[in-house]
């Protein structure tokens, strides 16, 4: 009986089927492989009924209902392919084609054309059949072929619209648009971003942001979800335009931040040509941000990728064989005392690379001088940040939280997947409060945006912490919101149970950040709230667990932990006593002068070479003018196997999708070969699986390499990190002498030491790094034009950056993102600004 209730019997084309109740006719037909053409329906989107192609005949129903919108009913008699229905469908296609370039569809010579003229080079000289990038993947083309349209009865009126190319990452040619509305629904229903809408009426209807603004201006996150669902060539990735159809797909974990999205790499001819969100419910749930969606091919396929090892020889760079390179490295390393060696490894590397790197330092070099410069990103706030990581809750808690507090979080470009979760939370009624000094994308949608001056976040959190601890008379700091509103917000937070606090990157770089994070910690305890810090580095947690820091051993143990050292000696079957001193990546000259500095996936420090011999292992040659003594080509994350551990503590697989270019090798393999050359035991790994097995024996949470459990786990760290005293900077808010407040943040969107903005054209537009952002009114008052070089002077330094107008900044505030090692002590810092005449 129950079975019967859950299904209905329908007759489709004279055959009876049992279909789950609630299915649409289209879903029912798809389930039984009955073809009904459609262009506007999409499995992830609500039924639209716009294209009308899926019309069917249903006995007893007026007109032809659309299969995509009509639910099945008991006893329904459906005919999907009657002559009348087919004729109406053909009419629809003809109407589409009456304004859609269609030589690729109905040209007499298209077969020949496909066979003989299939190169881009011929495009201009043939009849133009090759000018649609979607050729061969176009759904309109497919339906036309299936229904067999040979001619168009109507005169052709092209819309003659200008192709829109002004935005980064993808172009829009609305001449090819059939107004199926998938992009609009994607943007509105799934992403909840509401950037795209239908504009105009009648035949002039067109898709785009309101008021003829560009996508950049209208708050588009460039998530590319619209591009993915476009059935025609209307929306197309710039970087992938002529790549054609992918041959293979490989799901892997994205390497651009600690969210750890599952991404489906699109592969053609052993090249990654694109990245699409993988259907994975655990982390990103079918969504991606601009970095994962658009930045990968340009980054990993860049023409300057390192392909061969080479060394510096008489001032020249000379290609050498791997054998020679390994020998040279082994020679140089062998002559180092433990404290004359340093190894810096990026936390973008896989867990296995990180493990091997620290094992190399500790076992092969007997040294504790291994570090991951991610510590510089967190600066003095590192210990406070780790304390938050130890309390971290899974992102999924956002889906149930009644109230969410975001601090220093902007989800427009990076972490837009989290932004989607936040908007969904708001839709189901959760209160979202954001604390951020600058107008950011959450400012528009959150219930409350509290805007402190840069560094003033602490005072607000302090107020919340005091209020929620019962001190209701605490007086709130002055912000854009009234005291009463702030009190109300504090009350709301106090009353809600299951609050989640999200911590972004833009609250970590202040001089006061340690205190701010400590207050945040206290507030979370008062509220019983879960905290989710969202690390900027994809494998920051992995680097902590693997112990690529002088202070840490694998498993999060302190390097002073004798018991742990004994255990390691047993597993590693060696005796070692790594030296410990104040050395770290922020302080390379703390100990003895280095003989060898080994950089894996890290940028060169600026200034004088920090060691006698520099080994630089990366995917690109260094941007710095310093030439390394030995350069080793490494594999990018698309070219290596391994695991990443995301901010929630999930161990996730990284899959080799393509081969590394030239002779490039994965980092662990290079390290192991050098170690073997040095005659060190314990580096005889033939593949990553074996390394992972060794890690699993040492560190909790690591198990099966092929099927990692992907459990969210909060971190446990023993002891504290050594943090250099930040000098005796004193804020001198002399409003007259230094009228502007400079907020200098470290570069966040970086892969293996290279800013994405330096390698990906679109990223250059959205991540304006190393330029001075300034309110346009301030800038005009200072007689500055966009792009002018500006001299920024504080008590401690003088710097020159080009200026960029950013209306989202308040007046009196200027902001810049700089390389980590260029940060300037006090932050934010009062400065003078004037046009540079250099």
């Amino acid at each position, binding site marked *: 009986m129950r079975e019967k209730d859950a299904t209905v019997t329908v007759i489709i084309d004279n055959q009876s089927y049992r279909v789950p109740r609630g299915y649409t006719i289209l879903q029912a037909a798809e389930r039984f492989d009955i073809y009904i053409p459609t262009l506007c329906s999409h499995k992830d989107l609500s039924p639209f009924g716009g294209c009308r192609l899926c019309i069917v005949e249903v006995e007893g129903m007026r007109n032809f209902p659309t299969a995509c919108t009509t639910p099945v009913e008991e006893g329904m008699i459906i005919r999907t392919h009657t002559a009348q229905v087919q004729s109406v469908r053909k009419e*629809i296609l003809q109407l589409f084609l009456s304004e859609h370039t269609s030589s690729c569809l109905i040209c007499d010579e298209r077969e020949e054309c496909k066979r003989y003229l299939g190169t881009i080079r011929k495009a201009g000289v043939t009849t133009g059949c090759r000018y649609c990038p979607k050729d061969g993947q176009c759904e309109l083309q497919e339906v036309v072929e299936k229904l067999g349209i040979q001619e168009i009865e109507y005169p052709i009126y092209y819309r003659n619209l200008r192709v829109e190319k002004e935005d980064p990452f993808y172009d829009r040619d609305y001449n090819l648009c059939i107004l199926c509305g998938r992009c609009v629904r994607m943007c509105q229903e799934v992403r909840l971003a509401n950037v795209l809408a239908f504009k105009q009426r009648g035949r002039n209807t067109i898709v785009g942001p309101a008021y003829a603004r560009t996508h950049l201006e209208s708050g588009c996150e460039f998530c590319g979800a619209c591009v993915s669902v476009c059935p025609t060539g209307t929306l197309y990735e710039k970087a992938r335009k002529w790549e054609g159809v992918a041959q293979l797909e490989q799901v892997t974990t994205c390497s651009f931040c600690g969210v750890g999205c599952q991404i489906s790499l699109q592969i053609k001819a052993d090249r990654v040509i694109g990245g699409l969100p993988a259907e994975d419910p655990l982390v990103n749930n079918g969504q991606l941000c601009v970095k994962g969606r658009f930045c990968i091919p340009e980054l990993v396929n860049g023409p300057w990728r390192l392909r061969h090892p080479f060394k510096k020889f008489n001032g020249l760079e000379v290609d050498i064989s791997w054998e020679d390179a390994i020998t040279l490295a082994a020679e140089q390393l062998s002559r180092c005392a433990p404290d004359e060696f340093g190894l810096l490894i990026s936390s973008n590397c896989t867990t296995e690379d990180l493990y091997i790197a620290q094992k190399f330092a500790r076992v092969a070099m007997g040294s504790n001088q291994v570090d991951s410069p991610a510590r510089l990103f967190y600066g003095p706030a590192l210990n406070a940040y780790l304390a938050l990581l130890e309390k971290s809750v899974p992102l999924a808690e956002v889906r149930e939280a009644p109230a969410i507090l975001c601090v220093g979080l902007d989800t427009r470009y990076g972490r837009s997947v989290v932004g989607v979760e936040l908007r969904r939370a708001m839709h189901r009624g959760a209160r979202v409060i954001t604390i951020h000094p600058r107008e950011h994308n959450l400012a528009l949608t959150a219930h409350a945006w509290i805007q402190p001056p840069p560094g003033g976040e602490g005072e607000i959190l302090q107020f919340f912490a005091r209020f929620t601890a019962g001190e209701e008379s605490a007086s709130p700091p002055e912000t854009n919101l009234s005291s009463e509103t702030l009190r109300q917000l504090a009350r709301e937070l106090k009353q809600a149970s299951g609050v989640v606090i999200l911590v972004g990157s833009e609250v970590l770089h202040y001089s006061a950040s340690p205190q701010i994070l400590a207050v945040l910690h206290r507030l979370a305890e008062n509220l019983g709230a879960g905290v989710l810090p969202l690390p900027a580095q994809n494998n920051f947690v992995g680097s902590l667990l693997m112990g690529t820091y002088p202070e840490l051993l694998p498993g999060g143990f302190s390097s002073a932990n004798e018991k742990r050292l004994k255990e390691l000696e047993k597993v590693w079957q060696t005796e070692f006593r790594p030296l410990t001193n104040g050395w770290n990546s922020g302080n390379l000259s703390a100990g003895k002068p280095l003989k060898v500095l080994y950089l894996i996936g890290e940028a060169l420090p600026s200034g004088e070479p920090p060691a006698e011999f520099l080994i630089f292992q990366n995917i690109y040659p260094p941007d710095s003018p310093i030439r390394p003594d030995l350069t080793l080509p490494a594999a990018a994350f698309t070219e290596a196997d391994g695991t990443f551990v995301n901010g929630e503590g999930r161990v996730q697989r990284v899959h080799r999708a393509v081969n590394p270019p030239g002779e490039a090798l994965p980092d662990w393999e290079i390290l192991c070969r050098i170690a073997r050359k040095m005659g060190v035991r314990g580096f005889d790994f033939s593949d990553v699986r074996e390394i992972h097995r060794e890690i699993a024996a040492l560190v909790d949470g690591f198990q099966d390499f092929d099927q990692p459990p992907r459990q969210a786990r909060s971190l446990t760290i023993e002891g504290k990190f050594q943090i250099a005293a930040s000098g005796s900077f004193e804020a001198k808010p002399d409003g007259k002498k230094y009228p502007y407040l400079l907020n200098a943040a470290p570069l966040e969107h970086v892969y293996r030491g290279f800013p994405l903005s330096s390698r990906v054209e679109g990223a250059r537009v959205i991540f304006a790094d190393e330029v001075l952002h300034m309110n346009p009114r301030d800038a005009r008052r200072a007689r500055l034009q966009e792009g002018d070089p500006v001299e920024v002077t504080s008590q401690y330094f003088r710097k020159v950056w080009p200026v960029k107008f950013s209306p989202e900044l308040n007046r009196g505030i200027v902001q810049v993102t700089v390389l980590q090692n260029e940060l300037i002590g006090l932050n934010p810092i009062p400065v003078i600004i004037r046009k540079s005449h250099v």
Partner: protein
Amino acid sequence: MVSSPSEKTKIVVGMASCGIAAGAGDVYNALKEKIEKENLPIVLEKTGCIGACYREPLVEVQTPGLPTVIYGDVSVKRLEMILEKHVKNGEVLANWVVKGEGIHTSEDALFEKQVRIVLRNAGEIDPERIEDYLSRQGYQAIRKVLLNMKPEDVINEIRNSGLRGRGGAGFPTGLKWQFARQSPGKEKYIICNGDEGDPGAFMDRSVMEGDPRSVLEGMLIAGYAIGAQEGFIYVRAEYPLAVKRLQIAIEQARERGFLGKRILGTNFSFDISLKLGAGAFVCGEETALIASIEGKRGMPRLRPPFPAVKGLWGKPTNINNVETFANVPWIILNGAKKFAALGTEKSKGTKVFALAGKIKRGGMVEVPMGISLREVIFDIGGGIANDREFKAVQLGGPSGGCVPANLLDTPVDYESLNQTGAIMGSGGMVVMDDRTCMVDVARFFLNFTQEESCGKCTFCRLGTKRMLEILERITRGEGKPEDLDKLEKLAYNIKKGSLCGLGQTAPNPVLTTLKYFRDEYEAHIFEKRCPAKSCRDLIGYRVIPENCTGCTLCARVCPVNAISGERKQVHYINPEICTRCGACYEVCNFDAIEVFSPVELAETVDE
């Protein structure tokens, strides 16, 4: 309309949009000034549209001892005469009277056959004063409903009355209310659809301008019946006067406790707000209208679910048209039986029509259902302007169709009109004479719908555009023999395959004209001739030498100097230069200009 026994004369100026457009504002202001200046013992008031729009400005004069009369075509100059002769000397100016007690005028037929339910107050009360409404049983219906009737009783009463949706589709109103009532949910909404968009239709505007409170009261009753707490009136921003008067009516109702919390001391709370539409035709479609109120783009969505189940903000919603709501208080007060006694078996009550086009008495009329089109057009409307020949009447706006002369005896009810291929529609009636080209009419309406399509579904967006292109081709004389088949096929597909009512009915004007006036299409295509001599590309203008007096008037108005000729000599129109604008034809006082078909002329010459 018995004169009040007060000693003062009362003058009421018709101040609906039609009156104001004709100059009623000037008349009103002049009169006001004069009264103040000369301290005349006259009470000055204003009212809505009485229906005789073709005679606006209309001024009603109630002088004690004299019959109340309504004067038409009142200018400031005539006003002086009226004040002088009628008010001062007690002398009725019979020639100018449109309507008056005991006075027979040529206009009598206009009023005799009308039954005014919806328009019962329009033109009788000052729409900006609640007292006037109250004095005519205003808000008595809601009182009766709240104090003596259960919601079910109200729905039954409306069902028994046989009232059907006056927006055009004719869905039984009571049934609609019942669905909304049965829908589960605490929050429910009432929406009044005042997005009147058909070219040539202005019934809803007149009701909202002339008697806004009947609409409010109808909505209140509906709100009580279905269990709603809030109502919206969706009215076009292009109706500023209607918006203003609705606003006044809402505010006054709130002040008097007819809107707001615990109305008349009962547990029933209800409030109404206005939502101004930006003038998109498609927003008259109920799902698009709901989207528009929600702040979204006015775009229809699939039904089911119907608004009664899932409407505004996903809550059960009842949408009725302005005229439907205006009927409701009358039905409650006078009983379903009395309403059902009017009309035909399936179409009860009355229907308001806006008479427009080539008709003598253009304006607003309310007639009982079942009356024939002929009676409406010829008896009430006075026939065709300039006594030309009747050709067709267009009903139902862009979704409707053209009914030809031989079907003039079709009774006005939903089913009979549907059979002709036209529809009842919201009540626009555009009358056409023999000089109207039916291909051009179809082109006009299609041009309207294709521009107003929301663009969502393929047929409506592209299909109507392609049809329009074919029609344009035909009116230019470039039609091809296969065009008619193509039009019919495309029209059929658009009707069958479109998403909402706009698309599904958009081909109607083409289909009905093809059905009844196929010969005109064929003349355009095969003979390159426009029988109505209206399509510019297929006609020419020439001088009839026998009639031409050489007055030079035509030559002076010709914008392109195509006319030559000496004074007192027969003039000549150079066809090479002539743009066929018709200016000469319009000004000629001697019928000396004629329109001809160049093709016909060529044939005669050949013979």
